């Protein structure tokens, strides 16, 4: 059984009359790596700032192992933050930056030296103690920021988009390193990002946020394969949405009409009725591109092909104008596998790989919610 470390209940926060968090509930387990994922303005940073104590909620409570933290000031909370732009003290050396928190605790000098060196060794910066932050690269500054935050052995580490200022390759390295640190230290990590790939690859659980509301809470696999709603489906990964209509309902399955194809699919969790329109969601890697002579599938033609190294990604225009993204792995048997533009094909998918969602009242989800993802 997982133990709850930090419990947020009914957290509400407004800025200038605009609701940023709307009575949000969330339990964070001891030792987990949990990610708050969402587009900018979804409330994820506000949520983090409430946990850190930089902001105070208009309503609701924050408890840490049963102890109420809601009114506690940041300096008295047993948790630390890694800031988006590192926030290293520019006038202090690397050593003094990392030692700052321990000095504030009035620890003995010898203990401070030992713990700072230990923390810097953990991020492979033991040889940089005398440098000033501006003499370090972005990645090194990031490591100092992490060392500074973990040296106090917090119960919980809050990370506010800590990798967003790094270039792609460095980001990948730091992702692995953060995961390693989290395993070694056994500290609970609350990680904020708008990068869904980062969220999926690092987290034990992902919280998808939009407009101050939790859209979905689950493992990366659940969020990716079984999105709770259209927003999550669109925000996390690429998705093809095929319009479907329920033809008939059986015991464990339903027959759905998709582009005139009658497919018998697993019956979804939500109630269905005959004639109901619904969305059939397919990830690009679920799509099968077939020969135009194939009996099943929907006809279309290739309008774009992108060589991605391990996959060949293509865009197919169906006859009704729907765009379909397909991502196919290269096969050892057919290394020359490729499409030409305009090539006629048929599109299908493997039964059971689809995911069904009901139509939503407020759709379509506006594209602008996704642009900064």
């Amino acid at each position, binding site marked *: 059984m997982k133990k709850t470390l930090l419990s947020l209940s009914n957290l509400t926060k407004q800025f200038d009359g605009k609701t940023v968090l709307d009575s949000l509930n969330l339990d964070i387990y001891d030792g987990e790596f949990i990610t708050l994922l969402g587009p900018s303005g979804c409330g994820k940073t506000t949520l983090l700032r409430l946990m*850190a*104590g*930089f902001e105070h909620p208009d309503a609701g409570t924050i408890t840490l192992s049963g102890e109420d933290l809601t009114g506690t*000031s*940041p*300096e*008295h909370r047993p948790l*630390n*933050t890694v*800031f*988006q*732009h590192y*926030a*290293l*003290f*520019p*006038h202090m050396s690397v050593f003094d930056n990392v030692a*700052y*928190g321990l000095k*504030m*605790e009035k620890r003995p000098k010898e203990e401070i030296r030992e713990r700072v060196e230990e923390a810097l060794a953990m991020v492979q910066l033991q040889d940089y103690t005398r440098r*000033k*932050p*501006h*003499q370090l690269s972005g990645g090194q500054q990031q490591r100092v920021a992490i060392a*500074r*935050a973990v040296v*106090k052995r917090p119960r919980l580490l809050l990370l506010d988009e800590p990798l967003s200022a790094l270039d792609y390759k460095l980001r990948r390295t730091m992702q692995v390193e953060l995961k390693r640190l989290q395993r070694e230290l056994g500290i609970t990590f609350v990680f904020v990002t708008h990068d869904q790939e980062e969220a999926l690859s690092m987290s034990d659980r992902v919280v998808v946020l939009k407009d101050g509301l939790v859209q979905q809470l689950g493992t990366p696999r659940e969020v990716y394969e079984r999105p709770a709603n259209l927003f999550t489906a669109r925000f996390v990964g690429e998705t093809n949405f095929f319009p479907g209509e329920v033809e008939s309902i059986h015991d464990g399955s339903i027959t759905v009409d998709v582009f005139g194809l009658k497919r018998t699919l697993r019956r979804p969790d939500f109630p269905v009725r005959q004639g109901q329109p619904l969305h059939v969601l397919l990830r690009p890697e679920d799509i099968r591109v077939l020969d135009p002579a194939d009996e099943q599938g929907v006809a279309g033609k290739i309008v774009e092909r992108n060589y991605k190294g391990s996959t060949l990604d293509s865009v197919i225009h169906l006859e009704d104008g729907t765009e379909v993204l397909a991502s196919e792995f290269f096969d050892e048997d057919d290394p020359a596998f490729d499409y030409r533009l305009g090539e006629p094909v048929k599109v299908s998918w493997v039964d059971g790989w689809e995911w069904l969602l009901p139509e939503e009242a407020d759709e379509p989800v506006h594209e602008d919610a996704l642009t900064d993802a």
Partner: protein
Amino acid sequence: MPSITRQPFRTAVLVLVWGWLLFLVLAPNLLVVGASVMTRDPGTFISLPLNLDAYRQLFDALYLEVFLHSLYMAAMTTLVCLLIGYPFAWALSKLGKQRQLLLIFFLIVPFWTNSLVRTYALKMLLATNGLINSSLMGLGWIDEPIQMLYTEGAVIIGLVYLLLPFMILPLYSVFDDLRQELLLASHDLGAGRFATFIHVIVPLTLPGVLAGVMLVLLPAMGLFFVPDILGGSRNLLVGNVIKNQFLDARNWPFGAAASIVLTVTMAILMLAHRLSKQRIGEEGAG
């Protein structure tokens, strides 16, 4: 390196700037240095031979006292400006952008009036039968006027009044640049408000403090018309000494030497300012 002829605008600007600096900054200063090592001459003001008499004269007990008193008044002025300017600039940086601009505008408005005129205005306030005394007496709070004019305090008030904006503006600039994230980080790491002030805010605003001190301390020693109007004969500034040597006593070498002492003090302060900025990695270093 692109040829000069192909960039006429660039060349023109450079010539203008360098010409300006050579003729209006370097040359006059060299003339002052030259004058300071020459001999006083009643007819031509200065003449050969070269000597360091003027500098020796600076250590004369009488002048040393004037210097020290002048330094004391300038230091008090700087301290008062800092004590008012620091919290003012801090508060200013926390306001909304619109209000910030409005307040900065109010800070600058007095510059549109000649400072001599403003000093006379101050005299009207401080005089024995001036506005302050007559108001206080009218209210019945005092029975006889307080002697404010022609005191050390009046000189310091006058200097603070004229120089305060020069303290506030550089301080405002460092407070405006102070990243809120750093203060949050300090709190996050367990520092309270006071510890954060001492360990983060003060060191990071130090370049602004030094810039403000530079802009106040040196002019405060030079603004000779303030003691002339408000201070009486005993509260002289180095500026009065310099002015008197050139205009009244006609001892140019001594006046020049006194002026060079101020310039050197300024240079030392600028060096300190530069070092403080390097400490927080704003320029140079690497």
